[in-house]
């Protein structure tokens, strides 16, 4: 077993968080881990969704937390600390991806202008997702690979909105793009991923796994 599902710890409420930030800024620097602890899974998820490699994502996530630590004085309290932290993680992951994969990893899907209408390529019926689906590493891997094929501009919007669950406005602000662009890119990203995944989920991916739950094929 290489990984374990750890649900997100409940974030501290805004008032507690504000107090914590003030105490850290006033010198109690050892409290910083308490501040980031509720968001460490989200920081890792953002980095992993962009880098699609666990080791690189951990490095990027650690570096993002250290940068947040170093630059805490620059955080403006009108936005949420979690959004600021995730934005740093996305920037860190994006920088590493560009540096390390600039020539190797060309996205294979979609080179059309983002406002061109998108026609679904597949109408496979994909109604239900069994609740245990994501406990299977091979299924998670399929999803990671599908996301990796998207062009960067679609992937980043999708990561902030659907993986990190930021609002459309927060996503727009984090990426310095318009709300309309977020909506357009999000539509494209979701439809492309559906096209990539629906035949697998609607077809054989899940049934192939059934023998692992006790029904042996022999």
């Amino acid at each position: 077993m290489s990984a374990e599902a750890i649900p997100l710890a409940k974030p501290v409420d805004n008032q507690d968080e504000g107090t914590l930030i003030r105490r850290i800024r006033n010198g109690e620097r050892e409290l910083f881990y308490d501040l980031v602890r509720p968001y460490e899974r989200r920081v890792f998820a953002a980095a992993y969704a962009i880098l699609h490699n666990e080791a690189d994502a951990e490095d990027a996530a650690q570096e993002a937390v250290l940068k947040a630590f170093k630059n805490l004085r620059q955080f403006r309290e009108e936005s949420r600390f979690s959004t600021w932290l995730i934005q740093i993680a996305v920037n860190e992951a994006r920088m590493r991806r560009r540096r390390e994969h600039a020539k190797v990893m060309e996205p294979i899907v979609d080179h059309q202008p983002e406002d061109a209408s998108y026609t679904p390529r597949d109408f496979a019926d994909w109604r239900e997702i069994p609740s245990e689906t994501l406990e299977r590493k091979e299924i998670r891997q399929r999803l990671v690979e599908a996301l990796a094929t998207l062009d960067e501009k679609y992937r980043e919007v999708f990561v902030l909105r659907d993986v990190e669950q930021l609002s459309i406005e927060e996503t727009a602000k984090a990426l310095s793009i318009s709300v309309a662009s977020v909506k357009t890119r999000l539509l494209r990203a979701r439809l492309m991923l559906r096209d990539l995944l629906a035949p697998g989920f609607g077809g054989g991916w899940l049934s192939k796994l059934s023998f692992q739950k006790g029904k042996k094929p022999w």
Partner: protein
Amino acid sequence: MVVRCEEVWREISNYIDGEIDQPLRTAMEAHIAGCSKCKAILDGTRNVARLYGDERMYPLPLGFSSRLRGKLEQKLSPQRGGALGWMVAFAAAVLAVGTFAVGNSSAFNKPPLRSEHAQPGIHVPPQMMVVVADRGKTFHVQGCEFIHDKTVRSMPAEEAIREGYSPCFRCMSKYLSATALWVPRNSVHGRSGLQDVHN
């Protein structure tokens, strides 16, 4: 208002996010109810958002939290600097030498339990992820109803045990078998179960 398939596809993402006005929503619902293709697109698009947003999609690697914490502590320690830093380093060195000299003394190579009434676990899988609260005394599976603190941190079981946490009576009861129930009353270190964790 009547909409075509292409219009449904164009607005499907906004439909899921509740970003369209009521007349368009009603028209889309009417269309989708009678169109199997658009129904398939809606279901699939919803599933995409749901799957990637699920917290099980990107589980933290084992030991992530402790490595991150270690990095932060590293970052903090040079800041102490000066005479205090040297004193801390010297104290650590003395402690390390002292611990080495004591060798196999169980009182030194096993951490004290946080609660002297607690029981050690046996056959606890060392890499099993558990959660602890800083002020707590026991480790739990995530979501255990015996967790009372608002914030918890996750770590492998072996690390929790090293920090003196013991298994929760509720969610970790299977690691508290009858053989582990007897603890010498006058010694909090007489815990035969601890070695099993490192096997």
